[in-house]
């Protein structure tokens, strides 16, 4: 991420090296570091370890059959004493459900950030001018963002119902007015090729305002004289957008896309409520599959292994964007 340009005023420079400061320095930072070490880093490595075992539900009395057919009694504490195996990773390429879930997750991320960025940018562009009621609109924009995604999903399911929703009635009315032979009917959540899009739409309803707010803030930070100069040179609105606004906003754009993308990687709530992963396996996400594998199937080892696949995807995605940001930043911040 971009480093802040203003150098912080380290007190240490002035009141350097008193004993109290040497102690307090650690006191301030240690709790946060300790929390993350204990609750994030430690579980992370543990999980990696578990992914190489076949720990499963009822682990205290589990037995493992090794490849040569002998049965080993395992009595590991929380999986630590278990037999190491590559079985979990070996199974992956053939696990169709896993591949589908990975594909779906990537689809949500790519389609989600694209739609949200384009519409969010457009809205920000339109709203980037003084008008009456601007403060109210900001408040309205915040409302969906504050909702729990579970509630958003229920609302979405109600909106996209094919018989009792206003949207369905609208479609019926339109087809009736146009005199269409077959009335317009969109199986929002019941068709495997439509349902993933509907889920992206529901997520977008909630998060487009986020994109808009941030990009709007970015636009407002652009000094007015740059625009003035361009206008004096006779640049059209389109040229100003293409040559000035868009490039200046690139680093911020990359950041919001990164943030949203990483958030969408975690999607589960909307899917659980709207489709339960169906129809077929058309909407199941990796997080949902991990949850099912661990909680329903009690197959902890495999769930841990899949979660590492998710982590790898997230890291690839983040690396690409961090690289992009680093590449884009110097050109615009000077």
């Amino acid at each position, binding site marked *: 991420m971009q480093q802040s340009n203003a150098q912080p005023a380290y007190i240490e420079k002035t009141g350097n090296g008193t004993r109290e400061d040497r102690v307090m320095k650690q006191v301030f*930072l240690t709790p946060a570091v300790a929390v993350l070490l204990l609750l994030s880093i430690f579980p992370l490595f543990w999980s990696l370890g578990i992914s190489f075992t076949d720990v499963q539900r009822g682990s205290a009395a589990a037995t493992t059959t090794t490849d040569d057919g002998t049965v080993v009694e395992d009595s590991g504490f929380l999986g630590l004493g278990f037999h190491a195996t590559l079985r979990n990773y070996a199974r992956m390429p053939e696990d169709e459900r896993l591949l589908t879930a990975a594909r779906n997750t990537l689809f949500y991320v790519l389609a989600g950030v694209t739609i949200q960025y384009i519409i969010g940018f457009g809205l920000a562009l339109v709203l980037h001018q003084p008008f009456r009621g601007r403060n109210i609109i900001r408040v309205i924009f915040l409302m969906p963002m504050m909702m729990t995604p579970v509630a958003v999903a229920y609302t979405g399911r109600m909106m996209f119902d094919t018989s009792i929703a206003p949207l369905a009635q609208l479609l019926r009315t339109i087809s009736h007015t146009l005199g269409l032979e077959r009335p317009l009917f969109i199986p929002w959540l019941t068709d495997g090729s439509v349902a993933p899009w509907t889920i992206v739409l529901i997520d977008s309803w909630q998060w487009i305002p986020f994109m808009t707010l941030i990009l709007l803030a970015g636009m407002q930070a652009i000094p007015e004289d740059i625009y003035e100069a361009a206008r004096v040179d006779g640049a059209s609105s389109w040229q100003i957008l293409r040559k000035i606004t868009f490039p200046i906003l690139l680093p911020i754009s990359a950041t919001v896309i990164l943030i949203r993308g990483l958030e969408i990687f975690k999607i589960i709530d909307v899917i659980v409520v709207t489709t339960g992963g169906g129809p077929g396996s058309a909407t199941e996400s990796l997080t949902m599959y991990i949850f099912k594998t661990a909680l329903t199937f009690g197959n902890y080892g495999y769930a841990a292994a899949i979660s590492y696949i998710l982590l790898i995807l997230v890291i690839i995605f983040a690396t690409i964007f961090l690289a992009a940001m680093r590449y884009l930043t110097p050109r615009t911040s000077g």
Partner: protein
Amino acid sequence: MKHRKWWHSLLLYTVVIVWSFIVLFPFYWLLTTSLKKPLAVARGPRYIPFVDFNPTTEHWQYLFDEQGETTLRHFRNSVIAASGSTVFSVLIGSMAGYGLSRFRYRWKFPPWRNNDIAFWIISQRFLPPALFVVPFLMIYSALGLVDTHAGLIIAYTMFNVPFAVWIMRDFFDNLPTDLEDSARVDGATRWQAFVRIVLPLSAPGLVSVAIFSFVFSWNEFLYALMLTNFDAITLPVFIAGQNNTRGVQWWYISALTLTAVAPVVLIGLLLERFITSGLIAGAVKG
């Protein structure tokens, strides 16, 4: 920019109105649906109370009267989990943010300085929670933390701290050091200066952090689903549990959904400026 072309204004207001409609209509629909009798829901869309359907408050009564204890239990659990983790996140986050802003750290292993440490902290925020499903399940059951408020508070604190550190560090970076310096000259200890001078001055930042922590914890689903069975079930899990069998009882779901989102949406309405500034600090400066 004093004189806008007329079609600019037209476009502007069209967009504002259309988008406001898209955002607000679902809320309107939730509200009216919660007031409809089942038949008014089943017989296709009805839009305006008293005009095309007769409103009833029976679903609200069911939710808060007959089912009142159940509803309030989940509501209380959400409040406890969210406030608990908010307190810890604000405390831990502002301390670390202050440390990173005011002191110079040079770690030996890994060889990191302030910016690296800050980046490491914020990067934890973006780890997929699914990664922790298995280890948390095992650790929590070993420690007896499953289905306890403490368990949820600990998990949410872990997710909130990175963002809190990030925002608070940014806030302290922009806070002049003069006042704390003079307090120190007057004999205050570092900790006293932090608590008595710095924190009060940072109220806007703290409020931002508190809102974000609260809203995140209030809305969180995966951990609540995984780590609670009865005593600590929060609202999102309760609502999601109405799926399938109650999926057709939209009137009830609507009332419940409104109940769950009302507190956070109200926070949003009242404290909008803190949220926007926090978001911008998080994204633009990040």
